[in-house]
C-alpha cells in the first residue's frame, strides 16, 4: 500500500518561486491527474515526487515514509517520460530489463517479468528490436513496460501521450485506463489536455501558477468549479463569461444585470453578496440552447460556425462586444452574420464573485452534488 501525501510542498529556482505550498492526499490505487496550462508547475511537481529535483520546503511521504531526501530509485516510483527516454543502443528487452539487472535480480526472474509486461502491453514480438525501429506508439508502450517491470508503488506519467498522433492518443489513453484497472497501482499523471484528465482521472488536480486551484472528481470539477479559472479550464469549448452586477437577491436565486443590458437569473447561494456587487456569469456552451424560451435570453451576431457533424459550435458576439460560443445541434441552419437569439436555464448558470470564487450552485441540473455523490459512494461501498 502506498498513499502519497504532500504537505505544503514548495519549490523555487533561485529566488523565483514556482510552487507555492501544495497540499495533496493521494490514496493507494487512485488515478490522479495533474492538469493545468503550460508553466503552471505540474511537471515540476511530478519531478519533485519522482526525486529528480529537490524539494525546497515541505514534506513528501510515500507510504509511511518521508522521502524528501531519498534518491528516485529508493522511492518506489517509476516514471514514464513524455519523450519516452528509451536507451537508444539497447533492444526493447534490454531497455525493460535494465533496471532489474542493476538491482541484481536473477536471469529467470528478469525474463519472466519482462515477458509478462510485454504480454500485457502487446509488445512481445518487438523484444529484440531497437527503439529506432519502433513507431511512436510502440515506443510509448516500451516506456510503460519499463515502468511496469519494476513493480513500483507509484507510477508517474509526464504527458505520455503528447507525442502521439490524434488517433493513437485516443487508443493509448483507453489502454492506460485499462492498465490502471489491471494493475491497481497508484498513478500520478500530468497532462495539459483536459479530455485526458476527465476520462482517466479518479481525481483531478487543477493547477494554476504554482497553486492547486481545485481538486476533485471529474464531475465535481465540471459541475462545481470552485474558481473562474477551473470553470474556464474544464470543458470544451470553454465556458462563456459575461460580466454583470447583482440586481436582486432571492431565496433560491440571484438576479444579475448583465453588461449587454439583459437581466439574468442564476440559481446560486448569494452568500455575502450585496446588491450592486460585480460578478461574472458563467455558462457552458452546451447549456445554451438555440431557442428563446429556456430562460435568460441573449441575442447577438454570428461570427463563425464550426460544424462537427454531431454538433455545431456557433461563435457569436453580444451587443456589448462579449464573445460567446454556443454548442448548437448538428442540424443547425444558422449561418455567419445572421442575428440569432439563444437562451439558457437559470440552474445552468455559474456565478463568480469579484475575487473569481464561485458561488455555490443550488440546482446543478440533473447531476449529483458533491454531497449526493459522497452519499452514493458510501451506499455503493456498503453494497459491495
Amino acid at each position: 500500500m502506498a498513499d502519497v501525501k504532500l504537505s505544503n510542498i514548495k519549490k523555487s529556482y533561485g529566488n523565483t518561486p514556482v510552487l507555492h505550498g501544495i497540499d495533496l492526499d493521494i490514496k493507494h490505487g487512485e488515478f490522479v491527474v495533474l492538469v493545468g496550462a503550460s508553466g503552471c508547475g505540474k511537471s515540476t511537481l511530478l519531478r519533485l515526487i519522482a526525486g529528480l529535483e529537490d524539494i525546497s520546503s515541505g514534506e513528501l511521504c510515500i507510504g509511511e515514509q518521508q522521502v524528501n531526501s531519498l534518491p528516485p530509485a529508493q522511492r518506489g516510483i517509476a516514471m514514464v517520460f513524455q519523450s519516452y527516454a528509451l536507451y537508444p543502443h539497447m533492444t526493447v528487452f534490454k531497455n525493460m530489463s535494465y533496471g532489474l539487472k542493476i538491482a541484481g535480480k536473477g536471469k529467470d526472474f528478469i525474463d519472466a517479468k519482462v515477458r509478462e509486461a510485454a504480454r500485457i502491453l502487446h509488445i512481445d514480438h518487438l523484444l529484440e528490436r531497437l527503439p529506432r525501429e519502433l513507431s511512436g506508439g510502440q515506443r510509448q508502450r516500451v516506456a510503460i513496460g519499463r515502468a511496469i517491470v519494476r513493480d513500483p508503488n507509484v507510477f508517474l506519467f509526464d504527458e505520455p501521450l503528447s507525442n502521439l498522433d490524434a488517433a493513437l492518443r485516443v487508443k493509448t489513453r483507453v489502454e492506460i485506463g485499462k492498465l490502471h484497472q489491471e494493475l491497481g497501482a497508484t498513478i500520478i499523471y500530468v497532462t495539459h489536455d483536459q479530455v485526458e484528465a476527465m476520462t482517466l482521472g479518479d481525481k483531478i488536480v487543477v493547477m494554476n501558477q504554482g497553486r492547486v486551484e481545485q481538486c476533485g472528481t471529474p464531475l465535481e470539477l465540471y459541475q462545481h468549479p470552485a474558481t473562474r479559472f477551473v470553470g474556464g479550464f474544464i470543458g470544451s469549448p470553454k465556458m462563456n463569461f459575461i460580466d454583470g452586477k447583482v440586481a436582486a437577491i432571492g431565496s433560491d436565486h440571484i438576479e444579475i444585470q448583465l453588461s449587454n443590458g439583459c437581466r439574468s437569473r442564476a440559481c446560486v447561494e448569494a452568500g455575502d453578496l450585496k446588491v450592486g456587487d460585480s460578478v461574472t456569469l458563467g455558462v457552458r456552451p452546451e447549456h445554451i440552447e438555440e431557442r428563446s424560451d429556456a430562460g435568460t435570453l441573449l441575442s447577438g451576431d454570428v461570427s463563425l460556425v464550426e460544424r462537427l457533424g454531431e454538433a455545431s459550435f456557433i461563435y457569436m458576439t453580444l451587443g456589448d462586444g462579449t464573445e460567446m460560443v454556443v454548442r448548437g445541434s448538428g442540424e443547425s441552419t444558422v449561418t455567419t452574420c445572421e442575428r440569432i437569439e439563444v437562451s439558457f436555464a437559470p440552474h445552468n448558470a455559474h456565478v463568480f464573485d469579484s475575487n473569481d470564487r464561485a458561488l455555490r450552485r443550488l440546482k446543478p441540473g440533473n447531476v449529483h452534488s458533491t454531497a449526493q455523490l459522497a452519499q452514493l459512494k458510501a451506499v455503493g461501498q456498503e453494497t459491495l
Partner: protein
Amino acid sequence: MISLPGLKHNTGKTLMTHAVLLTYTVIALFPILVIIVNAFKSRKAIFKDPLALPTLDSFSLEGFEQVLGRADFGLYFGNSMIVTLVSLFFVLLLGAMAAWALTEYKFRGNLFLAVLIAMGIMIPIRLGTVSILNLMASLDLVNTLTALVLVYIAQGLPLAVFILSEFIRQVPKELKEAARCDNVSEYKIFFTIILPLIRPAMATVAVFTMIPIWNDLWFPLILAPGESTQTITLGVQQFIGQYVTDWNAVLSSLTLAIVPVLVLYVIFSRQLIRGLTSGAVK
C-alpha cells in the same frame, strides 16, 4: 529532374565547393603521393625524375630492405604504437569523464575548470617545453615512454573535453533521469549510457588526438631521444645525415609509418558517420 531556379543555383554552388575541396585534397595529398611513389624507386631514379612513377627498370625495394633489415626499426614502431595508443586511451577516458563532470554536475569551481581547460586549447603546449623537461628530469622520467605519454595526454585533453562536452550536452536529459529512476549509479550511467551514445564524438576526438601524437618529432627528440625509446619519426632521422641522406630508407620508413594511422583512421571513421541517438526520444 525538376529544374527549379533555386536548385540550379545550388548545383553551381555544389560544383564550386567540390572544386575548392578537390584542389585542397590534391595539394594535401601530393607530398604523400611523392613519398610513397619514390619509396618504390631506386636511388638513381629518385634523383633523375622525382615525380615519375616507378617503372620496371627503376622499381626497387632496397629502401624497405634496409629499413626492415634493421632490428631497431621494429622497436621504434612499437614505441610509437605504445605511446599513441596509451595516450589515446587516457585522453578519451579522462576527457569524456571530465566532460561529463563539467556538463552534468554543478559544483564550485566548475566554470573555472572549464575556462582553464579551454585555455589549454589556445596555448600550445610546446611553449612549456623547458619546464616540462625540468619536470621530467626531476621525476626521473627522461628517456622513458611514460614521459611522452604524460605530455601527450596533457596535450590532447583540452580539445577532447571541449568537443565531448558539446556532445554530452546533446544527450537528452530524460535518458539520465530514466536511468536514475532505474537505480543506475552515476558511474554506470556514464559507462553504459553516455559513452555508447557519444561514440561518434569519441571517434572524432580519437582521430584529432592520434595524428599529432603519431607525427610528433618535438617531444620525442627532447624527452626521449635514447636509443631504446625513439619513436618512428625520430628513428627516421638517423637516415638523414649531415652529408649523405639515405633517401630510399627515409621514404620507405615514412611510407610504412603511414600504414598504422591509416588503419586506425579507417576504424574510427566508420563510427564518425553513425548517428546513434536516433530513436532515443522522438
